[in-house]
């Protein structure tokens, strides 16, 4: 290998390709089973049993749901903008999956003497990339809502846009505080820091984590922040006019977003693929990687459960309450957290 800037050979392309396919299909599969999990969790919290007819314990339910969506009639309203109408769900899905590129799913594994990193792209501005893609995500909703040419859809789209702008601010500021502690935007560096010596970042940034968590709920349009699709005021919100698999894409994108933001929160605040109380450096790399993936998945599933748990506990906010919480409470709190963190970092000369 020469010293060119981009050391790309065939094997690298191949391993990245395999990794991309695996990650995309894993996130699709997890999103699929998140729908099943959502229904089960909802049922259990309401003293019901949930889907239990398709296969043992109803585990084939997602397939049945998917099949049903495929067989539904595809309706594109006459008065809609057809290109944008199709683009909306595609964009929502695309941006939902794109975020997974910079998340370190594990350390590295050894195959045929090669050390393969379990991260698709270790870019040094990983977190900025995530913020960028996350704010693109709202375009899927907005374009779909606009193209529907329906006032309820439009209301949903407007709400989604203003909600995401409002909460992204607080999210970004709370992340800046975390950035002061870690000193790196690369997600891999953050995990390595939390793995070796340091405690998990949630110990240093409890308030930052809380703000980040609340904003993540808002960014994923999950209850109590699911105003874009508030079904009792806006019919279905931005997806009122959608049917068949295009609707399925929107709903699916929500679950993928949930999965990805769970992964981001686990990585930023809960040590990523760090298995607690185990020193990974003493283990063989492949076993350590496996353990790391298990640990990360456990954390992600925990967060997904939290998302669902909150959804089936808390009623939806009113729109003015949502804006009040975002602008008058979370942003000042995040600013205060940032200042306090900055002062602490200066004082302790970290």
């Amino acid at each position: 290998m020469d010293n060119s800037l981009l050391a790309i050979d065939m094997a690298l392309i191949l391993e990245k390709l395999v990794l991309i396919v695996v990650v995309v299909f894993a996130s699709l599969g997890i999103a699929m089973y998140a729908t099943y999990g959502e229904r089960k969790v909802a049922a259990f919290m309401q003293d019901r049993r949930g889907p239990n007819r398709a296969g043992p314990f109803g585990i084939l339910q997602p397939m049945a749901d998917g099949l049903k969506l495929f067989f539904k009639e595809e309706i594109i309203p006459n008065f809609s903008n057809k290109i944008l109408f199709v683009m909306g769900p595609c964009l929502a899905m695309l941006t939902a999956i794109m975020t997974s590129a910079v998340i370190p799913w594990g350390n590295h594994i050894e195959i045929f003497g090669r050390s393969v990193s379990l991260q698709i792209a270790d870019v040094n501005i990983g977190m900025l990339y995530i913020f960028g893609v996350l704010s693109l995500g709202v375009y899927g909703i907005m374009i779909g809502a606009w193209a529907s040419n329906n006032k309820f859809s439009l209301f949903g789209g407007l709400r989604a846009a203003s909600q995401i702008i409002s909460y992204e601010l607080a999210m970004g500021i709370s992340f800046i505080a975390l950035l002061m502690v870690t000193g790196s935007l690369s997600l891999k560096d953050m995990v390595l820091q939390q793995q070796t010596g340091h405690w998990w970042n949630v110990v240093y940034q409890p308030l930052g984590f809380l703000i980040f968590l609340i904003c993540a709920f808002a960014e994923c349009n999950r209850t109590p922040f699911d105003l874009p699709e508030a079904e009792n005021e806006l019919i279905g919100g931005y997806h009122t006019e959608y049917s068949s698999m295009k609707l399925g894409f929107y709903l699916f994108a929500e679950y993928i977003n949930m999965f990805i933001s769970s992964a981001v929160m686990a990585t930023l605040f809960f040590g990523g693929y760090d298995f607690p109380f185990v020193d990974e450096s003493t283990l063989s790399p492949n076993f350590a990687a496996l353990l790391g993936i298990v640990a990360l998945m456990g954390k992600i599933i925990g967060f997904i459960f939290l998302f669902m748990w909150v959804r089936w506990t808390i009623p939806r906010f009113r729109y003015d309450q949502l804006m009040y919480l975002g602008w008058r409470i979370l942003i000042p709190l995040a600013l205060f957290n940032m200042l306090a963190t900055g002062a602490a970092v200066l004082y302790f000369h970290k």
Partner: protein
Amino acid sequence: MQALTHRAKQVNRSPMNFWERLYLPAIFQGMSITLRHFFKRKVTYNFPEQQRSFSPVFRGLHILNRDAEGRENCTACGLCAVACPAEAISMEAAERQPGEEHLYREEKYAARYEINMLRCIFCGLCEEACPKDAIYLSETFAPSDYERKQFIYSKQDLLIPHPINEPEEYKKALGNRAKPEDKS
């Protein structure tokens, strides 16, 4: 005002203090409630596999009874049809021929006996009207079907299994609702 029950609670309308205005404690409280429900025993029956038992007074599908020797009790007197408020019962009488004594208990019997289960309101008046203990309501309910005509139950559907040839099915169908055999 005098409270009607002792469950009335005075609502506290004083302004919220700081702790309450934080909302998060209340949210955690609510989440603990939902989590408790998560682990609660579910009250739902898994219907086709698991069936809940009915009380002995449950009035389900009709059964045309036989006596201990397996002869039909019904004499097609028509009292059940008269008593039926929904006019769900219709029948045709026939005379017992010599050599059929092992089939029918008395000289007259129902050649055709139909109950329209879509009309039936399961009131049990037919059971009360019957002087021969020939019809009573069992503890099973009418299964669903795709066609209306499937709900017109004929004699084959209603007759209880033969007590000597199929004693187990007979016992099952009899349940504990049939009156004891005390008539001549």
